[in-house]
């Protein structure tokens, strides 16, 4: 109770300080007056009475001070006073303040951007109820191909998961693809996914209007029903409340809308339309094509679930081990968020590390600046100490200055971070990140605040270390500083900065070389003049191979009539894309019975010609190849090398009775097999005539892929795209192209990760180099200023200008060289961690190392000797006179 009263009183006093000060003064005056009166009554003279009264009172100032101590929150008032003083100091030294704030804004800003990514991907909870109960199924392989990552499952695994793992509520989905949605006005290409009946239940999403799928609808031959996302409902259907129960035309068929998802929850897989998956053991269920998500039921544990999965999928393990001796496979649950972001983790954390380096480099620069400033303020500080301020008080006030700078820099940094983040996100293709958005939320702001505080400690603490050995008398009396102010310390800071810069430069150098390597892989075809357009044939009208063939013939004939078009063709996938893969068995010759994995692409006649892929032997797909004639295939060089050891593959038979009739050159594509994650490579590929694809395969591949119409023309521009769209519409008005691409666009799409890495890290490395250069420049410039007198004397005594410049510049250069050495050592240790991101070159690549060293030396010499050149303007006569 007492404490509360005291606090309350103190808070009131805060508000009425001035008035209370005045009242106290009046009260004290009254006291002295009363005392004087009494003394006069006792017989003293007026003067003596007053003097005695004052003596009896004690110190007036002291009393006032003690009174104030009792009255208010002392530390708060002092802090306020320190802040005001700091603000005045900063306003007076605008050059210094703006340099510091700008540097901090940049450094903290990039950290904010990087942390926003880390936060959105790794820290933020999934936007579903009880997200800690959500999981995915991860496949762990031991042995030579060791890995542990979520993988897709097949129909049999799904049925066992659903029926024999009671601890989990499970669901599966297909990956998202583009399909055609036809409304009265036009056709839209929308993103769609197929989900099993309980998918939304696992996530905990309930339709805002209508209902979820039932289990009957999820069976093969179930009703054609669809769920729409809230966003699609709003944009295409104008939030029509009567839409539920109505029919829409999806994939060429009629679907009934049974529900609309709420717009407040992010739509799973960022799609617009959901239809029942109807998982089975046939068709796509034969292979690993379903992505599973699970929710732990109440009362169950993850260990129980893992054990049950192990039992349910025991067969899978056994047959896998039989086919791949030496490897063991096991399955376990993993948190859904972790599983989804597994690949991105190292990238995002690496980015945060790089921005952390930038912050350290910036702090080193600022610490150097602060040291110089402290040096200049020595007389002022000495005076304050002499007047009775305690050392801790002075230090605290200095720290408040750094704090104010850091907070201002941090606030500016938030805007810089916002801009940097959105710049980065703009570089990424849509749907690249598994989260809907990357906000600057509370966590990020808290991070920025903490970063600012730590920064202020880092470069504000230095004056503290520096002031500890402070000799008052020396500082007060000396006008010139003869001893060197902390040169060693500043050189160490420079060395540290340069070391970190070297690491960043080397890392970005390796990534740049990787990107260059990937982008300049021999294309194996001629991309000039080629335009590609994709359309979704996941449409009931083209399930019949005859209808499909008719579409191919008519659309291609019409395309070839477009003026300027030299040739046209259709292919399931194109170079640079990820193709269909399958297992093939060789039926004759030495290698009979061998089966292996190959990519499979169906093409129309003219595919190789349109793309400019060289025909090395035999023939290409011809219009004579039809469903009734001999099934043929054309393989690429990689296929021949891998399965026939370089011998001529013509005449060999594959699978049932497909005969190899031709061989073409290799083209780079996004590999399906292979041990490392190289984004572009050549793989054994088999091209088959589109006309010879059977009904079952046709339906499947059109669910997974959008085939491309490719056209070689003299002028592949906007007009050509419009012409192609019109041509296709003339053949089938309900079939829109979903996008147009140049071959380089496809390559860019496949290499997006590498491009973003290069952009981000390259920028950071450049920033680090700039900051280091600024640091070295500042060091040498301050040396020149401080040692002007000494240099003037030296020159007067006969030293050459060059020697003088060299002496000063060398301080900077030596520090940088030390940093270079440390940096290279750090590289040797840290760079191997990047092995998974580098392709085509070694981690310890000599050319990259040479480039890094050369560019660093160039910048260092420029930064160190430019300010040193000012020495040329020193007039020795003048400096001597100033003595």
């Amino acid at each position: 109770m007492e404490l509360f009263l005291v606090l309350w009183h103190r808070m009131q006093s805060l508000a009425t300080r001035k008035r209370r000060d005045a009242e106290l003064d009046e009260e004290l005056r009254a006291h002295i007056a009363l005392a004087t009166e009494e003394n006069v009554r006792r017989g003293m003279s007026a003067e003596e009475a007053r003097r005695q009264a004052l003596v009896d009172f004690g110190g007036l100032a002291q009393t006032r001070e003690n009174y104030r101590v009792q009255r208010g929150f002392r530390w708060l008032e002092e802090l306020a006073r320190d802040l005001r003083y700091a603000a005045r100091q900063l306003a007076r030294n605008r050059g210094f303040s703006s340099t510091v704030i700008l540097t901090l804004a940049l450094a903290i800003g990039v950290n904010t951007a990087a942390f926003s990514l880390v936060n959105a991907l790794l820290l933020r909870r999934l936007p579903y109820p009880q997200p800690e109960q959500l999981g995915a199924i991860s496949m762990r392989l031991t042995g030579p191909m060791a890995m542990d990552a979520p993988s897709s499952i097949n129909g049999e695994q799904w049925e066992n998961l659903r029926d024999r793992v009671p601890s989990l509520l499970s669901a599966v989905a297909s990956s998202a693809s583009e399909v055609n949605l036809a409304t009265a006005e036009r056709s839209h290409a929308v993103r769609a996914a197929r989900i099993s009946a309980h998918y939304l239940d696992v996530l905990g999403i309930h339709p805002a209007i209508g209902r979820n799928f039932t289990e009957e609808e999820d069976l093969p031959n179930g009703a054609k029903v669809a769920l729409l996302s809230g966003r699609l409902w709003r944009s295409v259907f104008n939030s029509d409340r009567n839409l539920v129960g109505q029919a829409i035309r999806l994939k060429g068929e009629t679907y009934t809308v049974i529900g609309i998802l709420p717009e407040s929850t992010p739509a799973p897989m960022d799609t617009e339309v959901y239809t029942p998956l109807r998982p089975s053991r046939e068709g796509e269920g034969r292979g690993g094509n379903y992505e599973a998500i699970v929710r732990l039921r109440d009362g169950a544990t993850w260990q129980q679930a893992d054990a049950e999965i192990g039992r349910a999928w025991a067969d899978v393990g056994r047959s896998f081990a039989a086919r791949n001796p030496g490897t063991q496979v096991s399955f376990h649950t993993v948190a859904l968020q972790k599983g989804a972001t597994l690949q991105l983790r190292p990238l995002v954390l690496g980015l945060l590390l790089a921005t952390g380096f930038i912050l350290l480099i910036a702090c080193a620069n600022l610490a150097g600046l602060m040291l110089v400033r402290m040096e200049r303020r020595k007389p002022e500080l000495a005076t304050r100490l002499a007047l009775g301020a305690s050392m801790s008080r002075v230090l605290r006030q200095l720290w408040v200055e750094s704090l104010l700078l850091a907070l201002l820099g941090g606030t500016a940094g938030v805007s810089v971070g916002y801009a940097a983040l959105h710049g980065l996100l703009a570089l990424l293709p849509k749907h690249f990140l598994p989260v809907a958005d990357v906000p600057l939320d509370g966590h990020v702001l808290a991070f920025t605040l903490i970063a600012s505080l730590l920064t202020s400690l880092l470069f504000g603490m230095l004056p503290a270390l520096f002031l500890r050995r402070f000799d008052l008398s020396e500082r007060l009396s000396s006008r010139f500083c003869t001893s060197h102010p902390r040169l060693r310390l500043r050189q160490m800071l420079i060395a540290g900065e340069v070391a970190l810069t070297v690491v960043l430069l080397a890392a970005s150098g390796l990534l740049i070389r990787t990107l260059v390597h990937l982008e300049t892989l021999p294309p194996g075809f001629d991309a000039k003049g080629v335009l590609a357009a994709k359309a979704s044939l996941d449409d009931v009208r083209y399930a019949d191979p005859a209808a499909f063939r008719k579409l191919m013939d008519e659309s291609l004939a019409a395309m070839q009539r477009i003026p300027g078009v030299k040739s046209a063709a259709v292919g399931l996938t194109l170079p640079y894309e990820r193709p269909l893969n399958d297992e093939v068995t060789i039926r004759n010759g030495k290698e009979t019975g061998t089966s292996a994995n190959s990519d499979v692409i169906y093409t129309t006649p003219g595919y190789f010609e349109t793309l400019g892929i060289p025909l090395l032997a035999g023939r290409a797909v011809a219009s004579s190849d039809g469903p009734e004639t001999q099934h043929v295939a054309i393989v690429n060089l990689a296929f021949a090398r891998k399965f026939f050891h370089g011998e001529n593959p013509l005449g060999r038979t594959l699978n049932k009775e497909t005969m190899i009739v031709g061989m073409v050159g290799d083209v780079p594509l996004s590999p399906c097999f292979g041990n490392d994650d190289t984004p572009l490579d050549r793989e054994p590929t088999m091209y088959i005539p589109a006309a010879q694809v059977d009904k079952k395969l046709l339906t499947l591949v059109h669910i997974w892929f959008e085939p491309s119409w490719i056209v070689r023309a003299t002028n592949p521009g906007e007009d050509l795209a419009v012409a192609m769209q019109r041509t296709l519409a003339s053949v089938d008005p309900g079939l829109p192209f979903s996008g147009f691409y140049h071959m380089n666009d496809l390559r860019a799409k496949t290499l997006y990760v590498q491009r973003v890495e290069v952009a981000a890290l390259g920028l950071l490395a450049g920033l680090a180099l700039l900051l280091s250069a600024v640091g070295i420049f500042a060091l040498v410039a301050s040396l020149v200023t401080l040692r002007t007198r000494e240099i003037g004397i030296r020159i007067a005594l006969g030293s050459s200008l060059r020697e003088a410049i060299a002496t000063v510049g060398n301080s900077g250069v030596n520090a940088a060289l030390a940093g270079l050495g440390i940096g290279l050592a750090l590289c040797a240790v840290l760079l191997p961690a990047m092995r998974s991101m580098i392709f085509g070159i070694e981690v310890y690549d000599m050319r990259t190392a040479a480039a890094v060293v050369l560019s660093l030396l160039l910048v260092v010499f420029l930064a160190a000797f430019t300010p040193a050149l000012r020495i040329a303007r020193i007039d020795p006569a003048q400096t001597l006179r100033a003595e």
Partner: protein
Amino acid sequence: MGKDRTDLLQGTLDLMVLKTLETMGPLHGYGIARRIEQVSENALILNQGTIYPALLRLEQRGWIKAEWGTSESNRRARFYSLSRLGRKQIEKETENWQRVAATMARFLAPSS
């Protein structure tokens, strides 16, 4: 009562001020200081200024109240008076002191 010496000193001064106000009625700062000097028969010579932080402390705790008024010599001065809480505090502290004194007396008495 406080734990260390400064608190002890403050505590005794507080009690003296409260008792003074109880005996003398409302009084200004100077009056209270003089009275304490007199009662302690000048054994306690404190700097009169120290009374003011003490008065503020008592005011913050709600044991005394303050009002502006006029002195006998027609001077405007701030007069302090005891509050109800203050009277209760006097009782508490007096009891405390008497207990302490009694205990000490027992220790200091000639052994018998």
